[in-house]
């Protein structure tokens, strides 16, 4: 058993109590899970908790996984952990504010290994603007766009993760991007020359 073992094999072993096999899955997906949680919660500490909770939850309900994409199933559990946290924040706004304040001391986006100082500064600015704009989206649109553009899921897998139709995925992503554009245009970030360049460099 190594990092190349396919998901179904690891899942089968984990179901029989092989924790090591499950932890290979954890290592495989933890960056993605953590990043989704981070974008959903905008707070590193909360994202860490939600990620751990998601993996524990996945392990204990592994018997309920009925095939299909394990990644979609796992990310749905992670998304639910995030929704739980979002609900808790709404229930006690004061506490969540404290927590977010603490979290904000840690930067969400690490500095890129960008070639020049100027580009790096521009990228950091753009990424900050994007991250801020993402926060303003409704939770479901944010989840759809994060799965699509940050995790690179296709629409079918997003639909499986969010348990909605393809049409709903399509409209959520479309609306999310339209809204992001409005938000960013208002900040006059996106259409700056630097951003255009970074887009064309892709």
């Amino acid at each position, binding site marked *: 058993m190594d990092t190349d073992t396919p998901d179904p094999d690891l899942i089968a072993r984990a179901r029989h109590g092989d924790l090591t096999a499950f932890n290979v899955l954890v290592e495989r997906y933890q960056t993605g899970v953590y990043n989704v949680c981070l974008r959903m919660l905008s707070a590193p500490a909360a994202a860490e908790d939600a990620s751990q909770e998601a993996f524990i939850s996945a392990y204990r309900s592994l018997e309920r996984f009925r095939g299909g994409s394990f990644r979609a199933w796992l990310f749905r559990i992670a998304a639910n952990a995030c929704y739980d946290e979002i609900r808790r924040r709404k229930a006690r706004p004061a506490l969540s504010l404290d927590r977010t304040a603490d979290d904000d001391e840690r930067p969400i986006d690490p500095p890129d290994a960008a070639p020049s100082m100027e580009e790096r500064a521009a990228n950091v600015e753009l990424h900050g603007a994007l991250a801020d704009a993402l926060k303003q989206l409704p939770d479901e649109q944010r989840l759809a766009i994060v799965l699509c553009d940050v995790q690179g899921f296709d*629409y079918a897998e997003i639909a499986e993760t969010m348990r909605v139709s393809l049409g709903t995925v399509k409209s959520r992503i479309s609306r999310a991007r339209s809204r992001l554009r409005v938000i960013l245009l208002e900040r006059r970030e996106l259409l700056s020359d630097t951003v255009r360049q970074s887009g064309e460099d892709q």
Partner: protein
Amino acid sequence: MSLFDIFSRHPRGEFSAHADGELAPDRLAALEAHLDGCERCRGELAGIVTLRAALRDLPEVAAPRSFALTPAMAERQRAPVATRTTPSFVAMRVAGAGVAAVLAVVVMLDAGGIVDDSGRGGSDETAATFEQDPANRDAEAGDAVNPQPPIADGDAPDSLSGATAGDGDSDLPTTGGGDGDVQTPEGFKDPPDAGVGGAEDLPPATGGGVGSDGDVNVDEPPDAQSFSGDPDGVVTTADGGEGDTAGDDGKAAAPESGDGSPFAFTAEDDGLSSLLLIEIGLAAVAVLAIGGSFLVRRRAESD
């Protein structure tokens, strides 16, 4: 490409799917045809593409630590699942169903009891029960438009103690026991259907009281709380669908109504309003239980 297509149907909703390569082939052809003739949409699409690239350029953050499960996490968490979520989910649903069933039974007993007490005979034979009908109709007309607030029911038991009889006469300038007559003809004409149930549902014993109180209820809403008879009016209203045939009979007997002893059966009123309180309580519990089980189920499904 017609002008209509160009200016009225900008398929903006499909730009994102197009940028993601998720557009069905037929839609893709239509979209590209549109784009050929619509510069504005080409600009919009370009904006979406730029945004998409920027989003995909967002750096991934390394996990701050490994989330690998320790044996302790695995052990501690695995046991509770089977015993905790499922049973509470089942228990919630059973509780909800049970409460709903109890509620249904209570309501049925309530309805049945009143119908039985007043005697189907009321509608079938005697004019006696119909005497009170007109006033009752008034009450029901009022209730139909403006359902009796629970507060009035809740207060009724308190106000029953002694003072009620006096209130009946003194608080109401226009309606004593007998004054109910004055109001009744209107009551008949206005709600031909709404009041139908009154004839059957009205307990004969409470007849006079209810009759006068019914008027009070309609004409003097603010005073409703001080009248012990009101709960009857409410209860009967709730069950009012029963007697379609009673309506015509009631009209005939109307002029005689309202002379009965208004508060002769306050004890029964008390019982009925208690029952109402119980019903309201059970309804609240049922709503909570059903809502709770729904939430639990959603969580269980989403896991």
